[in-house]
């Protein structure tokens, strides 16, 4: 049963993954309607996941040295 902020936060991942049972989801939605603290926390928690997702692509960097090292190691294994 979700009635408090602590309950809401414990269910946040299932809520965002849309795996929370419908009754629990409705209770959580009802709690969020009346709780600015939790609305704010949920917003930032969702943002946190988006910001981590944004790191998926690494910045290109020079690979010449690495390529030379690999080629050297490969030549030794022939």
């Amino acid at each position, binding site marked *: 049963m979700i*009635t*408090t*902020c*602590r*309950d809401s*936060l414990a269910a*946040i*991942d299932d809520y965002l993954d849309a795996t929370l049972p419908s009754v629990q989801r409705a209770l959580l939605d009802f709690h969020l309607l009346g*709780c600015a*603290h*939790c609305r*704010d*926390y949920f917003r*930032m*928690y*969702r*943002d*946190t*996941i*988006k*910001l*981590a*997702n*944004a*790191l*998926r*692509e*690494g*910045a*290109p*960097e020079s*690979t*010449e040295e*690495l*390529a030379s*090292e*690999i*080629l050297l*190691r*490969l030549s030794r*294994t*022939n």
Partner: protein
Amino acid sequence: MGPVSDDKLLAALQAREPAAVRQMISTHSAAMHAVARRILGSEEEAREVVQEAFFRAFQSLANFRGASALSTWLHRIAINEALMALRSRRSRIVEAPIEVSLPRFYEDGHHMPAAPGWSEPADVLLQRGQVRAAIAACIERLPTTLRVVLVLRDVEGLDGKETAAALDISEAVVKTRLHRARQALRALLEQELLK
């Protein structure tokens, strides 16, 4: 050598043509390095892991059946190598406590007042210069057990089952650690973004 298909590149790689080797490394090393660095939290170890990952990949190229893209295959090798490196130093890890304030509650389970967090949406925050570096730095400050789960789930996009298998822990433990990691990262980002 210009861009070629995976099939042609694979044939050239199996023949160990230097141009193909260079192309493969040039194309894939940045993403492999990024994931290794995030798992290990160390630039130096990440470089070693990427080199080892490429070397292992070349040794097992004959086993690559093309069931996944070359990039996916290489990425998983890099993740596995980074996790192996992590396990080899696990006995040396002294986990620091999370030095951030997690949500606090009254006895009745309701939130205690907290400082207001950031107000801009994630898409807007990402337009700020250096914000990606700040996010990466915050992730590196997470304790290792939490950081690795967050990197695999939220940065690399593995699902709970894949993460559990990669780390040899249960899906329930993945879920618990991910929740704690996200809470800690939110708090660290709050400190960083409101500076």
